Each structure stands twice: as C-alpha cells, then as structure tokens.
C-alpha cells in the first residue's frame, strides 16, 4: 500500500523524492532510460504523465514535452505498455499523472483495470475535483488504485476537510498559486499551509511546484513526507541529458 510504503520509507530516509516523467518524451526508449536513471539515483516514487493535448495545469516545460510526445505519435495504450515495463523493471511505486479526458475517453473502468494490470498504484488527475469524480473514484476503488488529490494554499479549511475525506495514499500539496515550473520561495507561509493540511488528514503529504534544489528538499524535511520534483528535472534533461538528471537527483537529498 502506497501510504504504508511512504511512512516506512520516510522513517528510513527522512524525506522521499517523487520524480515526474512525461511518457514518450522525447520517445519511449528515452523515457525508459530516464526512468532507469532516476530510479538508480535513489528516487522513491514516480509520476508517469500520460500526455494530453490540453494540459491546463502544467507550465511551459512540461507542456512542451506533452506536445512533443504527442507529435511523435505516442498513444494512451503505449503509456500502459510503458507503465507495465517500468513497474516490472523497477521496484518503486509508479503513479499515473494525466488529465480527465484521457481517463474519460478511455472509459474509467477500463482505464483503471489496465492501470492495475500495468502495476500502477496511484493516479493524479488535476482536473477531476471529487465533485466531478464519482465514477472516477468508484473505478479507482474497484481496482485498488489510490486517487491522489491536490491541496492548495487557496483551499478553504472547510474544503480541506471535505477533500480529506477522499484521500488515499497521500495528498499532493502545491506550494503556491500557479502552475508547474515556476519559481517558488519557500517560506513560513508554507508551514502555515501545511499545518492546515495536517489538521484535516493523517495521510502523508507530498509537496510540489518549484522544488528544484537540495536546499528546497532540506527545507521540506520534517515538514512533508515527499518532495516532488517535476519541471526542474525536465529542464536538465532538455539541456544536459539523462546522466545529468541522474546526477541531479543523486545530489538532491
């Protein structure tokens, strides 16, 4: 179980790292090499993003990777096959990150069935709030996959409590307003926000949006269980290649 895995591993490592990979960017083989490199750098969890043509919650770096994977011809079924391959090859939990329409068009039931088969343990779909997620939640539950919800600094206390009721595995807290890929100044406001989150849930917390340096991870140690690194790794991949990414993750904690 995802939640237990995070708790145990956090005790061992102080703070976990979750990486993010856009499946099929720049192509499937490279994606595989990237996953391999990141895993060998000691990362603890990984989001596999199934590309979508309209990724409204993503910033320019991830957006371009989505686009370019699609232009290269990546299909949703390729992503399932890819997931299967990496979950077979590497011994950390993998989650799917994507957008509602990918799940919806595939059919929710079918999507989770195939995800399960592929060894996926959780899903992050930023444009499905619980209000719109009845069948999504049902399908996830039926297949024992954890739907991860997002908590944001703009979320009211009442709504935090409401969202807490839907939590499985962990919560994905976003460090600030905005989208992925922009700079974040980690400050005491963040503590305050995390405090509000802790008040409503016992589940582990992951924090993402703007984590890009060892200092960020150090700052987060003891505050959250998981630090999520997304755009920064992709930027390094784009400019310096896969080995640099591995190196980046190695030095991050």
């Amino acid at each position, binding site marked *: 179980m995802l939640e237990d895995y995070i708790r145990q591993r956090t005790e061992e490592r102080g703070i976990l790292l979750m990486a993010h990979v856009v499946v099929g960017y720049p192509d499937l083989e490279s994606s595989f090499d990237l996953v391999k490199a990141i895993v060998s750098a000691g990362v603890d969890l990984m989001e596999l993003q199934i590309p*979508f*043509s*309209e*990724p*409204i*919650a993503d*910033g*320019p770096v991830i*957006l*371009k990777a989505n*686009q370019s994977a*699609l232009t290269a011809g990546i*299909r*949703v079924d390729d992503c399932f096959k890819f997931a299967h391959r990496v979950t077979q090859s590497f011994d950390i939990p993998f989650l799917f990150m994507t*957008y*509602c*329409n*990918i799940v*919806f*068009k*595939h059919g929710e039931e079918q999507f989770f069935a195939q995800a399960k088969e592929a060894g996926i343990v959780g899903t992050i779909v*930023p*444009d*499905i*709030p619980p*209000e*719109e997620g009845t069948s999504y939640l049902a399908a996830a539950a039926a297949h024992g996959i954890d739907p991860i*919800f*997002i*908590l*944001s600094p*703009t*979320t*009211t206390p009442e*709504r935090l409590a409401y*969202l807490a009721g839907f939590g499985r595995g962990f919560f994905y807290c*976003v460090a600030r*307003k*905005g*989208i992925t890929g*922009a700079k974040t100044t980690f400050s005491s406001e963040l503590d305050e926000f995390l405090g509000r989150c802790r008040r409503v849930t016992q589940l582990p917390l992951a924090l993402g949006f703007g984590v890009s340096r060892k200092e960020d991870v150090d700052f987060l140690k003891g505050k959250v269980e998981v630090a999520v690194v997304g755009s920064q790794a992709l930027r390094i991949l784009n400019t310096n290649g896969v080995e640099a990414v591995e190196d980046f993750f190695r030095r991050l904690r």
Partner: protein
Amino acid sequence: MERPGYYGQFGGTFIPEILVATFDQLRAAFEGIKKDPSFWKEYQSLMSTYSCRPTPLTYSENLTRHFNGPHFYIKREDLNHTGAHKLNNVMGQGLVVQRMGKSRVIAETGAGQHGVATATMAAKFGFECTIYMGEVDMARQRPNVFWMEQLGATVVRVTDGDRILKDAINEALRDWATNMDTTHYVLGTVCGPHPYPEMVSYFQSIIGSEARDQIVRQAGRLPKRVYACVGGGSNALGIFSGFLDDTQVDSVRDPSDNHSGILRVKVSNGVELVGVEAGGEGLETRRHASRLASVHGSVGVAQGYKTYFLQDDDGQMLETHSVAAGLDYIGVSPILAAYYEQGIVRFEAATNDEVLAATRLTMKKEGIIPALESSHALACAFRETPQMSADDVILINLSGRGDKDIFTIADALGDEGWKEFITTKAEAYSA
C-alpha cells in the same frame, strides 16, 4: 434535478484545485447579480449608452425578393460597439468584476474579436488587461492585435500547442491560477467550467429578448426558423434564448443513437432553432470545426467542462479548420450539446465556399458586410430557402461585422487591387 452547472450530461467544473476558491467567488458574485433586481437595469443602461442596444432588426427586402421568400429578418449585432455580440458578454462581466473588487482582467482570443471587446471593456472600467492569443492567430489577425494594444491591453503571444484559440484558453487559465486574487478571467463564450456557460448566456440573452419583441412587432408574428452561427455558442444561445418557449419538439432524437449526426427531430409548429457550425473545406474532408453537425465530434472533458469535442479516440484534441477564425474551436457550449441531444436545436454546417458566396450576396443585396462567422448562419438560411414558403418569416442573427475580415475576405476572393496595395505598402516600409 440536474446538478448546478450541468445541462443533461454536459457542463461541470473540471478545474484544478487551485482555482476552486476563485470559482466559488465568481459563482457567488454571479448568483448575487441574478438576484439583484437592479443589476439587469444597470446592465441594460450601460449597453444602451455605451453600445447601441437594443440593436436593430433589419427587414432584408432584397434577399427576400432574391430567394422568392421567406421574409428575411436580420438581428444586427454587427452594430454593437466593437462590431459584434462579444461586447454584451464582456460588459456584463465587467460589472461582475467591479462588484468583486478586482482590478485586472485576462482573456483568450482567437479571431481577436473577443480580445478587442475585452480590451475595450477594460479601458472603460479602468482595469489592467492581458490578452492571450495564439501565435498563429496573431499572425492572421494582426489588425485586432494592433487595436488591443492601442486600447491599452498587453497581448501575450502563445507559442505552445497549436498556437490557436484553445491554446490561448489554456494559457489564460494558467495565468489565472497564479493571479486569481486580483484577476478575473473574461471567458469569451458559453463554454468553460460553470458558471461561465450560464453567465455568458445570461448576458447574451439580451439579444433574444430584444429580437423576439422586435420580430413580433415588425413582422407581426414569430419566425419559422432562427439561424445563428456556432463557435462556442454565445451568439446562438443569446438569440435562441428568446425563443426557447416557442419551440415544439415533437419527436426527440434517439439517445441510444450514439451521435450519428442525423437528428431525427420534427418541429411541427413552433419556432425551429438552427445552429450553424463551420463546415470548413467540407465535412467529408475532416477539415472543419463541426462538433455536432458532423459525425466526428464525441463527448469529452477539456478546458474545464464536458461537451462534444473534435478529438481522437485517445481524447487528444484535433486540429480544426474554418475560414472564420471565431468558429475555429474544438468544443461547443455544454448547453448547446444538451439542446442537441434533446432535439431543441438542429445543427448544420456551412462550408467555406458557401460562406464566401453568402457574404458576397449579402454585401451586394443588403449593403451589409457580415463577419465570416455570421455568414455561416446566412449561408445555411440561403440553402434552406427552398424548404420554406414565400410568406414564412425567418430570423438570422448577424453576430458581427466583416470589416475586420478584410485580409481574409480579400485573400479568399483573390483581389488583385488589394494585393497590389499591400505590396506597395510593404515596399514603402522597407524603403
């Protein structure tokens, strides 16, 4: 009962958590406005002093004669300030922004029409203004970019995705997710997450309520059919809304028939509502933007709402095509999607060629330069004249004027004088 924000199975609020509080605030502000009896008066007064509402209803004698009937009545949204129905929406949202106490507005634009309208509204209300526009659209619609800038707006070039309208929407949403405290997103049509479809159609309903009064007064009776072009659907819903109680749906489309594209509806007696989508180069070429009139649309969720989209089996959005930039969009109003399934509105497509011919005919016969978007409604009405009798009355919503389309129209007609003019201009610039 339907859930709020839902129309049949369509609509909803598929938004990132970061925006939930902002949508709550917007919804509350809009609910407040709907309940406030003074609001609509304030809105009407603004629209009648800043724009020219009520816009006229023109009897088009020459078109009527040309086709041997039916009697053509044209609702003149082209006479609105900034040249299209878009102003109705943005001025309404301007009042909402004022009530929310925000100081900045953002918007997406494709054709540029909504961007110009929003920049105009921002100037009038004293808001800061940023407009997102795809790089491709910026290149096609430079005159509007120029005016937006002159009106004081910052126009941001969107270089991601297909660099068109849908990408501009994504980019605007991203801005909003960062700046929601100060900023309101002025969505341009009856799409997007709740409450946009409801709110935008609320403001655009001013078209239909005026038009119904006018046609009853001027023609002495209700129209047999009402035609409107459908991009996102705001001008169509605007005019249709005045006639919803006048429709009579006798046999509803078979819901098990999974979007065959053929609507089995007979409107025996009431007013028939006809939405006309962009047929582009022809439905069979797949180079079009007909989500409902073609068999190529299917239900999906994107940009925050559920509706029919032009998308592939995986749910990836397809490229769309139309000579009319304002109709060149992947999705359609969830309200119209529901009316489609309920048989309340019939959907048709008009091709680029039909649209240019209709534009030409309307200019020559009536002295009116329709926007290429609006010409879709005209083209469909022209095509269907043989189905009607000479004393039937029909109503066409002329959503905008076509001056803005001069580059497109001149190109489409291959006008040599125009090419020469542009070439001479360019030479003067490089000299």
